[in-house]
């Protein structure tokens, strides 16, 4: 009798010990015409909770799209998303890889494993089959050949190839990049400039300020182009307007309280209004008639400083999406959408059927891609 009991117990254990599979094959990805934005969330460092959230024009939100489609997690700290052709390129910071997914199906095209100590942050298409990737790592490792660098990668997916074509030594962290004509602007501890036909460390130049010194751009500030072709970007103390031809600052606007390297910025699709944040406050500069903003256009939850602005993006409808997260709380971030008057413009139904002035994305949402 006892042997039957033991046998039964063992059988039950074997059957029930099968690994749980967290897949959802029923997820339907909206078409590109229905999709309005994709939110890239970093997740908590070391926890692998990075994710993609999609939102449609009719306010349907789908969480963890990558995981649901590909039956695996996106990785540790996905940083940004760039569309090149039919694919999205997603650098995954602490996983030292770039996930390439099909922009319609979200299925993996290739996992570009870099096998170096660089920390991929942003991607810019150089044309043809080359992309360039920025690197958050700060300096060379003593005694090793590793160094902070920009990397030029081969994107002939599915072929047996050397993924890293070459590296450009930088010696400091680099972040957002922008190709303007034949020049590549790279933000970081210094705003670097390269000629596209001479992408070498020795040919690197720096944009200089009024004191003729290089200056840094906020880590997550986009390099924005206004309708006159001028560059707008955020520094830890000011907003700068730069002529890409002369590679010099035209104007600099100093805003009270602007001191963090964590500022975000974006510009509307018409290239007129430049938006940036300082903590919980969002400011705007009219590039047609620029001046230092005297007050924020949005000051959400001013009395609750624990909630901070973690990302910012301007939609195709010229409204502003703001990601807010609660420090110390490992929960989904909230994405609010405002017009220029500081009014909420979209409401979303939450899982309990309540109308909320935000939708939830992943943990630490940090980049919004608009379609």
């Amino acid at each position: 009798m006892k042997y039957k009991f033991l046998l039964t117990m063992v059988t039950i254990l074997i059957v029930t010990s099968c690994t749980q599979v967290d897949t959802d094959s029923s997820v339907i990805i909206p078409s590109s015409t229905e999709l309005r934005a994709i939110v890239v969330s970093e997740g908590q460092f070391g926890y692998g909770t990075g994710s993609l959230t999609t939102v449609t024009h009719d306010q349907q939100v789908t969480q963890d799209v990558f995981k649901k489609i590909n039956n695996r997690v996106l990785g540790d700290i996905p940083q940004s998303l760039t569309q090149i052709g039919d694919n999205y390129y997603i650098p995954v910071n602490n996983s030292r890889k770039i996930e390439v997914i099909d922009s319609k199906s979200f299925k993996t095209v290739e996992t570009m494993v870099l096998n170096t100590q660089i920390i991929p942050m942003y991607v810019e298409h150089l044309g043809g089959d080359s992309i360039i990737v920025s690197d958050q790592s700060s300096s060379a490792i003593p005694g090793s050949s590793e160094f902070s660098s920009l990397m030029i990668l081969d994107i002939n997916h599915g072929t047996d190839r050397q993924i890293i074509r070459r590296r450009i030594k930088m010696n400091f962290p680099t972040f957002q990049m922008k190709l303007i004509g034949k020049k590549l602007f790279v933000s970081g501890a210094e705003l670097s400039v390269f000629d596209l036909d001479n992408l070498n460390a020795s040919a690197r130049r720096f944009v200089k300020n009024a004191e003729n010194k290089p200056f840094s751009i906020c880590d997550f500030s986009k390099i924005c182009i206004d309708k006159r072709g001028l560059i707008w970007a955020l520094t830890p103390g000011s907003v700068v307007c730069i002529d890409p031809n002369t590679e010099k600052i035209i104007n600099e606007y100093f805003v009270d309280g602007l001191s963090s390297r964590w500022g975000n910025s974006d510009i509307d699709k018409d290239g007129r209004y430049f938006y940036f944040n300082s903590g919980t406050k969002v400011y705007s500069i009219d590039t047609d008639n620029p001046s230092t903003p005297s007050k924020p256009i949005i000051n959400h939850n001013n009395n609750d400083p624990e909630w901070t602005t973690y990302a910012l993006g301007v939609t195709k409808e010229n409204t502003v999406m703001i990601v807010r997260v609660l420090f110390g709380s490992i929960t989904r971030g909230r994405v609010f959408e405002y017009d220029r008057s500081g009014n909420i413009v979209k409401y979303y139904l939450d899982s309990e059927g309540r109308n909320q002035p935000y939708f939830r994305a992943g943990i630490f949402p940090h980049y919004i891609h608009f379609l």
Partner: protein
Amino acid sequence: MKYLYKIVISLIIIFSFSSVQAQTEEKENIRHYEINETTISANKPIEKTSIGSKVTQMDSTLLIKNKANDLATLLTRHSTINIKSLGQGALSTASFRGTSSNHTQVLWNGISLNSASLGSFDFSQVPVYFTDKVTLYHGSSAQQSGSGALGGSVDFGSNDKPVTKPYFSLLSEYGSNNTATGAGTIRFTKKKLTSSTKGYYQQSDNDYRYLNKVFSNKPFYENRKNAAYKQGGVMQELFYNPTEKDILNLMTWYQYDNKELPQNILSNTTAKETLVSNNVRIIGSYQTNRGINQFKLTMANLWGKMNHKRNFGSFSDLSKNKNNSFVTRIDYRIDNIYKWDLGLTANYRNDMVKSSSYDGKAIHRNTYTARGFAMYRITPKLHFDLDATAECVDKKLYGIYNISGRYFLINQYLILKASNAYNHRTPTLNDLYWAPGGNPNLKPETGFSWDASISSSITTGIFDLYFEALYYHMNINDWIMWIPTDNGYIWSPVNFSKVNSQGSELTAKMTVNYKKTNHILSGNYTFAHSVDNSNRGDDAQGKQLPYIPRNKWNIDYEFWYNNTFWINANCSFTDIRFTSADEEYYTNAYYQLNAEIGCMLSLKSHQLKLSCKLDNILNSYYESTQYYPMPLRMWRLQLNYVF
């Protein structure tokens, strides 16, 4: 041939060991041997208190079976407490009743080993070989261990009554992943002096193979990287018994750990992280027993040095930490004075930590403690006790208490217990002084807890049964958590969380001794509902805390034949654990099934024990911490000689 070579090497290591420590080891396997030994009879130990709270003494046979394991493995498989591990030999922390690892006090022979800088303790640094007893104080019962143990405490060390019979033992084990263990004990008595010396060494390549299904679009097999470790130690105990009423005791423990720290399998780094630590712990005590009066003086010195080298890509640094603690403690107890037992304790502790994280400065913490205890037997069946402590930490005064009672409903067969306690945990030195980010204005965490239990112990002929069911409830305020500050580059600790934890614990053990066979079936089950009640307006409100499983159980069956042959099977289950505070992300539940088969050969006073162990029989992939894979099926062969 290769394995034979390893076994020989292990044996050489064993023989080369000789050092220090005293352990009151019963001659191997106290249940199955006739032990004809002499114990030092002079003194009764200072008894523990909290009669109405739950205290679990780990079965000594479990300690013997797990001699080549670390304490984390033992507790994972055989207790209700929750162990969070980064892998075999890697950092392992313990938590009770839905609290955090910082709320667990770890004591060696009654002296706290918790790091003054971190607050928590790494259980992988304690070989079970160095323990004769492991006692778990759950919830309010941990108050007697001092402040900080909001969840509970784990006290390991030597038996209260030292064994004086000469003893010699050698243990050698070799297993998967090139894991080799060697250990030895020698004990002798000369007149009134007893010496016990133990040595232990284990090393492992720890490069187990598993299928990585999460990193890229193509699943691939890989071996665990940068997870090798070496650990060793020596322990010396000296007991001097000048009269039958007095005993002097000196215990010394040196422990060395050299570990590579593996990264999660999503982090594609080729860089290495290593942790090398050296610890010397010394406890000296004098205890005397005069009639109903007991007095004990204890002095301890805990010295440690830890170098943490990190080489992440472009970021490389070496963090150096030194700690040195002195403890002086006086216990006085008087028993059976009318219907009362009374006790007083005075304790002084000085902790010094010098760390590169404190700008290289040495930080001191002085803690003065005065504690009073009283137990009153109202009737032979109804007892109460009160334990109150005043503690002064860095010139700030705090008070904690525990009140508990028990009622013998049907003699020893059915006992009701209940307790209530208030405790606090002072911020760690890292919380206060870490540069940058330390917050000197932090308040201590405070907690109220209640529990009630019913237990039954029945013995009839060949049959023994023990059962206990318990419910607990706990509120913790001002939970300390590190968060990024405004500019995002500096993390700083703040008080803000309120945590409510409630649940139940079931423990059962059944023993049947029939003719030449012995059957032992035991199990533990715990349910923990531990939720965030901070009400900060986020989605964590009312949700289970990360890495606290709601359900956890383990079951163990052991069969003996003629005291020479045994089979043991152990199964443990850990429920899903949420990895985000809003219950949106989680890591999978897992079972682990382990087995052991062994036999024992005896010739006069010589005994030879041979056993084969198989861990994770189902070869299932599982993670204690998400994306840190644990070993798949592992085998181990153990040879143990006792004289």
